[in-house]
């Protein structure tokens, strides 16, 4: 079935339809023949049988009534009428039994009943005739009772036979009617089944070979279009984002570049200042060295002052000794003046004056000595302080030397830094150029994605048209 092409499948469905039609026609022919045969059987056998059995029953009723009349009314002529009716009953039943095509059971029953009624008829004539002639003796009454029972039995059997034959006829006619109805419905069912089968094949053919594949293709293309639409929308979005980001990036790079230039300028300025600091440090070192030398000279001067002070002290000692000896001399002169009396009075005054001068000289020498000692102490303190200052200057000098070294290092680092920053500036310039190209590329990408989206929309419209053609509803 799957290997056949569409044309073959459609022809197959038409063939199935024609085959079903022919089949249903043939079946109705066959069943019509059966129905005709059944109708013939009913009209030729059962219908006359039912009719004759009814006649037999009616004649039997008449016969019984005539016998009754004979007995009850004591009417001898009624016996003859009863005999005639009885003969009619027997004849009708024999006619039923001899109908060809009747069921064997029914024929036998009718024949048996005919014989039984014939026998009963003979007995009845005898018995009822005797009752007419000789009155109702006890034995006669017994026979009549027996006959009454037989009559009832025969009547029941006859009624049964008539009912059975009528039922057979009714059954046959009902069966015929049912068969006819069944035949009609069967023909209709076969026709409908054929129609449904053919329709089903056509439907399946169209669905599997035309609609199905088209629907599958539509589904696939629709999915692809949806996917492409999503992807292009996403791409457009990404392109726009990339473009925006690149523009922002370019702005950042410009800012970074400007900052780098500022940093570069600062770095150069730092390098210059570091060089200047180096020079200043050199000058400070020289100044400190000069100060150190001045301190050395100061120390030497202080030593000289100290030595001069010690010389002054020796002189003062000599002056003190002179004053002491002068005082002793004055005392001696006073003693000599006292011994010399009046003559010596004037001399004693001079001697006193000399002695006070000696005293004053001794005091002055003593005062000068203490001043010189103080001065010597101050000088040695100054020498010590000058030593301290010298050591401090030495430390300052070494610190300045270290500072000079550090400043030199700073200057060289600043130079290196300036060079590195220059490199960075070049790199950033390149990045800026690349970013500009990225911006234009992203813009182009977004434009391309937009074009793709519009193409996808066109594809969807075409798909909707195709879906309408194959009877699908667009989602």
């Amino acid at each position, binding site marked *: 079935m799957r290997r056949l092409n569409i044309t073959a499948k459609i022809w197959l469905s038409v063939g199935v339809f024609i085959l079903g039609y022919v089949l249903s026609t043939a079946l109705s022919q066959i069943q019509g023949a059966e129905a005709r045969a059944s109708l013939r059987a009913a009209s030729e056998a059962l219908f006359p049988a039912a009719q004759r059995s009814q006649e037999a029953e009616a004649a039997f009723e008449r016969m019984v009534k005539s016998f009754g009349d004979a007995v*009850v009314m004591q009417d001898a002529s009624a016996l003859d009428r009863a005999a005639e009716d009885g003969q009619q009953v027997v004849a009708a039943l024999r006619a039923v039994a001899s109908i060809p095509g009747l069921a064997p059971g029914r024929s036998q029953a009718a024949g048996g009943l005919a014989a039984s009624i014939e026998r009963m008829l003979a007995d009845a004539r005898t018995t009822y005739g005797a009752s007419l002639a000789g009155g109702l003796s006890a034995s006669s*009454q017994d026979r*009549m*009772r027996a006959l009454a029972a037989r009559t009832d039995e025969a009547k029941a059997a006859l009624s049964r036979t008539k009912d059975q034959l009528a039922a057979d006829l009714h059954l046959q006619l009902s069966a015929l009617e049912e068969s006819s109805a069944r035949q009609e419905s069967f023909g209709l069912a076969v026709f409908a089944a054929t129609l449904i089968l053919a329709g089903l094949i056509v439907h399946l053919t169209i669905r599997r070979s035309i609609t199905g594949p088209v629907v599958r293709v539509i589904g696939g293309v629709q999915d692809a279009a949806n996917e492409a639409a999503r992807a292009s929308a996403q791409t457009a979005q990404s392109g726009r984002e990339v473009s925006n980001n690149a523009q922002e990036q370019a702005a950042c790079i410009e800012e970074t570049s400007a900052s780098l230039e500022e940093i570069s300028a600062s770095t150069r300025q730092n390098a210059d200042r570091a060089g200047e600091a180096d020079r200043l440090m050199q000058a400070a070192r020289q100044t400190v060295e000069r100060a150190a030398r001045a301190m050395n000279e100061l120390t030497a001067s202080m030593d000289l002052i100290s030595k001069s002070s010690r010389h002054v002290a020796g002189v003062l000692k000599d002056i003190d000794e002179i004053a002491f000896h002068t005082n002793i001399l004055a005392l001696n002169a006073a003693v000599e003046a006292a011994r010399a009396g009046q003559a010596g009075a004037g001399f004693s005054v001079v001697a006193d004056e000399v002695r006070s001068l000696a005293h004053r000289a001794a005091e002055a020498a003593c005062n000068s000595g203490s001043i010189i000692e103080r001065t010597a102490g101050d000088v040695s303190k100054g020498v010590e302080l000058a030593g301290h200052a010298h050591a401090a200057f030495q430390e300052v000098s070494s610190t300045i030397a270290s500072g000079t070294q550090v400043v030199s290092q700073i200057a060289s680092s600043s130079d290196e830094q300036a060079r590195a920053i220059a490199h960075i500036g070049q790199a950033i310039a390149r990045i800026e150029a690349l970013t500009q190209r990225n911006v234009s590329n992203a813009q182009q990408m977004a434009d391309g994605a937009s074009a793709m989206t519009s193409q996808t929309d066109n594809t969807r419209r075409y798909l909707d048209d195709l879906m309408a053609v194959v009877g699908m509803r667009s989602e």
Partner: protein
Amino acid sequence: MKHLQIFLIATAVGICAAVTASAADIKVIANPNIGASSVSADELKGVFLVTKSSLSDGSHVEPVLEKDGPVHEAFVKEYLGKTDSALQTYYRSLVFTGKAAMPKTLAADAEVVAYVAKTKGAVGYVSAAASTAGVKTLEVR
């Protein structure tokens, strides 16, 4: 014309009264084994038309008739509402259909009394003057 009709009817009634006995001249008798001492007219009719084979007290009954005669005529007319020939036809139809046998029919009162006296359940009728030795007389209500 009207006078003639009245005359004829009166004559007929007079003749009938002269030749037939009345209910007062009939006694209904029964075998002493029957417990009841009275019987209703309907029951009596049922017994003689063979539609009843027992009385209301449960005792089995069998009718006994007299042959033609004023007592019989009077009984049939008074209690059964029929003529003798109609009653005979009725009995024959019962016999023909096998429903019953002809009831016992006896010639005179004495025979009836004798039969009733010796037959259990027998019910008969005799003239009021007849001797009823050995049987019991039933009052008809």
